[in-house]
């Protein structure tokens, strides 16, 4: 038995450490540790609830909008206000764009290098790559000349030693099994995806004033101007045309590149439909409606829970059953560390009891993470695109059923294959395809409303704090790219007195609870094969399949290149 440590896990957001126990050629147990303290909740206390979203969106430097959205929803819930349809549509477009962009970036720029060996791409025959590309898609960039040019550009960069981007790959590892031509195809699309995502996210600049960190969220609606006759308004016929074009381009890329690539790569790595199963309980709060956020029946992505991989029943979700444990986290609760607390009563009292750095291993029998352990009704849950897709599938959503079944048929796999590492990857691509379809419709609806003179974007009834109850509580839920996100706020005398966020990666990356139940990463790593203990690429494959995002905090450039996580541990 040996313990293998990966710290920091790269190609993710934030600080994550994974320790696994290995016996023979397989993982027998795992521990997931968030190695950085996130104190956003403390920063929000005492502030005006109407500005909470500005601070909350700084929880993360990448999926910034999702926290802004969850935050305004929490405050709207607390003070009791609804938003106009246009505001719901704009929020859907912003969040949906974020989802699709994130999924593209995740697959090509964060995850592909776990499956694609760049050094093998350099050995590929561009003519054969061209044949392969044309056999799986109508995407026009598929000529021999094109792949030759890409190969030459990558060769030049690699030989000049400038390609540190690709330096985190385990090149030559025996677990890379794609033919050189598939590797070259994926590398070409890695580069194309850079352009696609950069163009696509301009939708955020249109609707949010700027990106990252859009500025147009507003309690009660949005501050996005909408006027068919006003060229200066954020939403006018010109910007609608621009957004239509950007969505169309993204849709073409998802249909002709992203999804075919996922299917092509998955067909070589079919055994990864057997690894990484994980907890088997899946949860989604659900999201995306043009009506009231309090009416889940209208959600495009349904709410629900699947227990024990049983797709025959979708259970309801009641957020009263959400609670967090700190038994194995570096916090204390006034009631004692065996207790679990609902986020509305949440407490963030950090207390680091781990080993003093430098150290070899964490004390995994005790506390070992800055991430709390959320549970639903005492059970661990996996959240994210796979959970959403499974819940939509099991709920009988036609569009989702159709595309999931078609993809499974192409790979000749049963629905049960989705409970896996490769299932997470496939679900993300399928979700991107579903989402771009919705985006088209939401933009069309905004256009239609504008044409009919319906330009209401904000409901100011409860803007004045004098109209609020003396004390009130609320929560805001959202389906962010990585899964179910919740913000809980408590307001007293017009000020925030308590604020808690349970982010998707808290559900997935969290440690064990008081009963010793594993978190989603931990459970999914059981049975992962390991060919080479010094290069645990297979562990990264499963961890990355969740698209880890441990809240960003500090990003000082260190000129001497010393390890960064250490300082965070010393807090």
């Amino acid at each position, binding site marked *: 038995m040996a313990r293998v440590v990966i710290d920091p896990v790269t190609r993710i957001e934030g600080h994550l450490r994974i320790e696994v126990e290995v016996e023979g050629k397989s993982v027998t147990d795992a521990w997931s540790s968030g190695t950085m303290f996130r104190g956003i909740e403390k920063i929000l206390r005492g502030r005006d609830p109407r500005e909470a979203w500005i601070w909350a969106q700084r929880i993360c430097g990448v999926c910034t909008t999702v926290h802004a959205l969850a935050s305004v929803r929490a405050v709207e819930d607390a003070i009791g206000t609804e938003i106009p349809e246009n505001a719901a549509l704009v929020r859907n477009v912003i969040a949906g764009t974020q989802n699709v962009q994130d999924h593209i970036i995740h697959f090509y720029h964060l995850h592909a290098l776990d499956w694609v060996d760049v050094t093998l791409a350099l050995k590929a025959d561009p003519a054969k790559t061209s044949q392969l590309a044309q056999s799986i898609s109508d995407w026009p960039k598929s000529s021999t000349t094109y792949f030759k040019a890409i190969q030459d550009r990558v060769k030049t960069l690699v030989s000049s030693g400038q390609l540190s981007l690709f330096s985190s790959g385990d090149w030559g590892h025996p677990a890379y099994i794609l033919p050189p031509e598939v590797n070259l195809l994926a590398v070409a699309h890695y580069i194309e995806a850079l352009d696609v995502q950069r163009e696509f996210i301009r939708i955020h600049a249109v609707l949010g004033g700027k990106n990252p960190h859009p500025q147009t969220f507003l309690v009660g609606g949005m501050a996005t101007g909408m006027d068919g006759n006003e060229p200066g308004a954020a939403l006018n016929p010109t910007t609608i045309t621009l957004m239509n074009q950007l969505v169309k381009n993204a849709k073409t890329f998802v249909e002709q590149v992203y999804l075919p690539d996922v299917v092509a790569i998955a067909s070589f790595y079919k055994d990864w439909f057997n690894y990484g199963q994980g907890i088997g309980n899946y949860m989604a709060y659900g999201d995306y409606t043009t009506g009231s956020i309090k009416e889940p029946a209208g959600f495009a992505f349904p709410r629900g829970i699947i227990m024990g991989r049983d797709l025959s029943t979708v259970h309801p979700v009641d957020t009263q059953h959400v609670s967090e444990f700190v038994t194995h986290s570096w916090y204390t609760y006034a009631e004692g560390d065996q207790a679990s607390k609902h986020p509305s009563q949440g407490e963030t009292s950090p207390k680091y009891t781990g080993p003093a750095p430098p150290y070899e291993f964490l004390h995994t029998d005790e506390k070992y993470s800055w991430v709390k352990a959320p549970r639903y009704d005492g059970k661990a849950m996996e959240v994210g695109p796979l959970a959403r897709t499974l819940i939509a599938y099991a709920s009988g959503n036609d569009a989702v059923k159709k595309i999931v079944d078609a993809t499974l048929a192409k790979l000749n796999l049963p629905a049960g294959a989705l409970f896996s590492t490769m299932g997470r990857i496939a679900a993300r691509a399928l979700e991107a395809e579903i989402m771009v379809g919705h985006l088209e419709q939401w933009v069309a609806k905004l256009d239609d409303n504008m044409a009919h003179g319906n330009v209401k974007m904000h409901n100011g009834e409860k803007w004045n704090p004098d109209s609020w109850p003396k004390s009130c509580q609320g929560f805001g839920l959202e389906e962010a790219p990585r899964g179910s996100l919740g913000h809980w706020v408590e307001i007293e005398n017009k000020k925030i007195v308590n604020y808690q966020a349970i982010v998707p990666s808290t559900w997935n990356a969290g440690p064990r609870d008081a009963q010793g139940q594993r978190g989603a990463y931990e459970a999914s790593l059981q049975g992962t094969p390991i060919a080479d203990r010094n290069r645990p690429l297979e562990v990264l494959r499963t961890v990355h399949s969740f698209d880890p995002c441990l809240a960003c*905090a500090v*990003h000082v450039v260190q000129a001497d290149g010393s390890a960064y996580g250490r300082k965070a541990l010393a807090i």
Partner: protein
Amino acid sequence: MSAGGGRVCVLGLGNLMCSDDAVGMIAAHRLAQDARLPREVEVVEGGTLGLDLLDSVHGVSRLLVLDAVDTGVPPGTLTRFAGEELARLPTSKSVHLLGLSDLMNVLRLMDAPPIETLLLGVQPESTDLGTMLSPAVEAAVDGMVESALEQIEDWLMAGRDEAVAMIPELAAPVAGF
């Protein structure tokens, strides 16, 4: 290669909630409000990096980055990194998706790197949670803004020379001398 005489962009980096980590963001904000800033220069408050910034820096000819840089010198000290020094800044330990050098590499991969990139840094004292700069770092912000303005002026001059050189009628007499 990017065209001569093209865009100049200033990119402020940092987390506004991590005290001195925010120095580049705060300097960028002040620079953007400074009446002396030439109108054609874009200032981007980039926050904590990520691929979302790609659209801002794609196609830029000269990129000036403002950030907190830990070189172990006294807090508030201004530092400069260009060329090789900049390329040597570590990337693999970056806590974000993309460190600055990663962002540069992505631009190379896309065949759209800036002609010149310069990083102006300030040594932080503390990067703990907080929304205020420490006194030594606060005192350095004006110096950072002044250095940025000087650099921008140099670049705009260079950009004008390049633009002139690209017009044959104007360039020819010079070449004839």
